[in-house]
């Protein structure tokens, strides 16, 4: 009896399994291609069923999707699984579909000068402790950074060393030395960087002779060489017809703080007089030049706009005849009594005009 029961139960179990298997099997003409790493399945079968369906094949699409998803899930369920925190987790293989990268492969960088030297000598970095015992404060402090153990900058007493000048500022000397070290470090870092990217430092741009240098580069190199003497180029001889380099002096000149009292008094009084006077003081030449320059700039901007519009519409419609000559009625150097009438536009005044297209005095072409 029990035997029969067992047989019946086993048969029933078998039938159940077969049924379950039927529920999850899908018949396809062509096998799908799976990329389980990406949870991807590609069905190459031609969609004949869908073609027969009308304009809105929703139900057929859903049926097709169901079949394909069933096949994908069957594959995924066959992967090796493990239990991670009460959840059943499958281990996915590597994705096989090749997809393009988003950024290029990183290039290996060349070694810095120190790294080359260390490699040559076999020097390896020593492992240092994070904290160092500080006697002065009686506690463990970090090796460098905020509130470090041996802070040079916090010292209030520096002994003058044996052979040094007693009037020298030792604190300033220390600060200067630190600045120089930092600058040297930065320079070395930039040199390493330039070597890694196979470029030249901008400060030493064309200074190394290559044989293929242009006239400007050679001129620059010559200038730098001239100035690189102990007296900063003051006593360097010049060739017979060589001109002094312009623009090598100071860019701004300031009067000394206290010097010529008479000249200072004079300039201050003059300033007050000008401010108090009712009549406006105008430098006519400067004013006209400024006006002419503004008008030129406006014309240039207009010309540019017109040419841009012309390009967009697919053809240049002629830059409106705005030639460089300009309207010949402009220009002319005015003198004397026309002080207050600078904005008179194209001057229709009488008065002397030195020829048609004569430009103003200090005007550059």
């Amino acid at each position, binding site marked *: 009896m029990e035997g029969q029961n067992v047989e019946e139960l086993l048969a029933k179990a078998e039938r159940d399994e077969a049924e379950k298997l039927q529920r999850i099997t899908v018949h396809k003409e062509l096998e799908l291609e799976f990329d389980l790493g990406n949870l991807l399945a590609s069905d190459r079968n031609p969609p004949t069923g869908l073609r027969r369906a009308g304009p809105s094949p929703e139900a057929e699409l859903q049926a097709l999707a169901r079949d394909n998803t069933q096949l994908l*899930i069957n594959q995924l369920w066959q992967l090796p699984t493990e239990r991670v925190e009460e959840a*059943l987790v499958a281990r996915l293989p590597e994705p096989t579909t090749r997809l393009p990268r988003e950024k290029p492969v990183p290039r290996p960088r060349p070694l810095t000068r120190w790294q080359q030297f260390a490699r040559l000598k076999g020097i390896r970095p020593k492992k240092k402790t994070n904290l160092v015992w500080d006697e002065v404060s009686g506690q463990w402090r970090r090796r460098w950074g905020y509130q470090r153990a041996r802070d040079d900058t916090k010292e209030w007493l520096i002994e003058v060393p044996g052979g040094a000048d007693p009037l020298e500022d030792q604190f300033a000397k220390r600060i200067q030395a630190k600045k120089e070290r930092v600058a040297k470090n930065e320079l070395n870092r930039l040199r390493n960087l330039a070597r890694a990217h196979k470029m030249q430092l901008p400060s030493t741009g064309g200074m190394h002779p290559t044989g293929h240098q242009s006239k400007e580069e050679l001129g620059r190199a010559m200038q730098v060489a001239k100035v690189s003497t102990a007296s900063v180029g003051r006593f360097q001889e010049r060739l017979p017809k060589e001109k002094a380099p312009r623009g090598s002096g100071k860019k701004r000149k300031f009067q000394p703080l206290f010097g010529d009292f008479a000249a200072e008094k004079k300039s201050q009084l003059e300033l007050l007089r000008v401010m108090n006077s009712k009549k406006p003081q105008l430098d006519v030449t400067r004013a006209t030049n400024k006006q002419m320059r503004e008008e030129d700039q406006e014309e240039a901007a207009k010309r540019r706009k017109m040419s841009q519009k012309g390009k967009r519409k697919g053809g240049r419609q002629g830059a409106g005849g705005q030639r460089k000559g300009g309207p010949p009625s402009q220009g002319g150097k005015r003198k004397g009594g026309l002080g207050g009438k600078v904005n008179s536009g194209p001057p229709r005044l009488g008065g002397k005009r030195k020829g048609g297209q004569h430009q103003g005095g200090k005007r550059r072409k």
Partner: protein
Amino acid sequence: MDALDRVVKPKTKRAKRFLEKREPKLSENVKNAMLIKGGNANLLVTQVLRDVYALKKPYGVLYKKKNITRPFEDQTSLEFFSKKSDCSLFMFGSHNKKRPNNLVIGRMYDYHVLDMIELGIEKFVSLKDIKNSKCPEGTKPMLIFAGDDFDVTEDYRRLKNLLIDFFRGPTVSNIRLAGLEYVLHFTALNGKIYFRSYKHSCELHFCVLPLLLPGTVGTRLLLKKSGCKTPRIELEEMGPSLDLVLRRTHLASDDLYRLSMKMPKALKPKKKKNVSHDTFGTTYGRIHMQKQDLSKLQTRKMKGLKKRPAERITEDQEKKSKRIKKN
């Protein structure tokens, strides 16, 4: 490495981390997508972008304002956006009379446009139009491509590659089987591409197998809980569904594409030497041996055949005479 390669070094650790996240690496980050509206985007296209953003969260950026650009004419503004937000995938929506309900999907390589494909939206059903429960955001979707059209032309092949790249999400090594519930199904039919998203709730089946232990009184039932039993899938339509038609394409040239596909040597799978598998699953190994001196080979000793000292001497003399003769 790029953070160290800059002329101006980052002054804070946070800035350095920011730069290190964006620099090129051996194994890359998950690709971010940026969703941009064009100058004349209509409601449909905006809704499509919003739905795709919901699918791609948190690896996506949705730009709220309209940007007046034309991707197929001028790619500079797209490249600028990609550089600023570190996104290498983009989707641009616009609408005009000539190209109604236009969607441009594209991807970038090194912040320059690699591929761009323009698709027209013919029909769209939004996430909120289908009233049922949605799956949590950030779920890795299953992707299925149906139809033989996806392998016929180069355009369709690239489109398939682009769609996989766009929708696949982060690459994981383990996946929770119960969390596989989201399916994106692409069908290519009659020149149209049907994009449907379905949801499946996974039920674990319990298999009851009664086991009778011999020699016991009464039966003992042992329940075997099998979460490994493959469930039957029942799908319900959940998410955005689009009917797309292929319009213009701007595909990368072959060498640029090959350059972007280049895999660094370190990531290539290492081949094990001297091990081979045959089709039946047997693993064969190869051992390389040195040349053996067969005269020194140790064989079974037979005492009867052992040479006696007198015989050995005569043999040596013979050998010597032979050598002299030869010379």
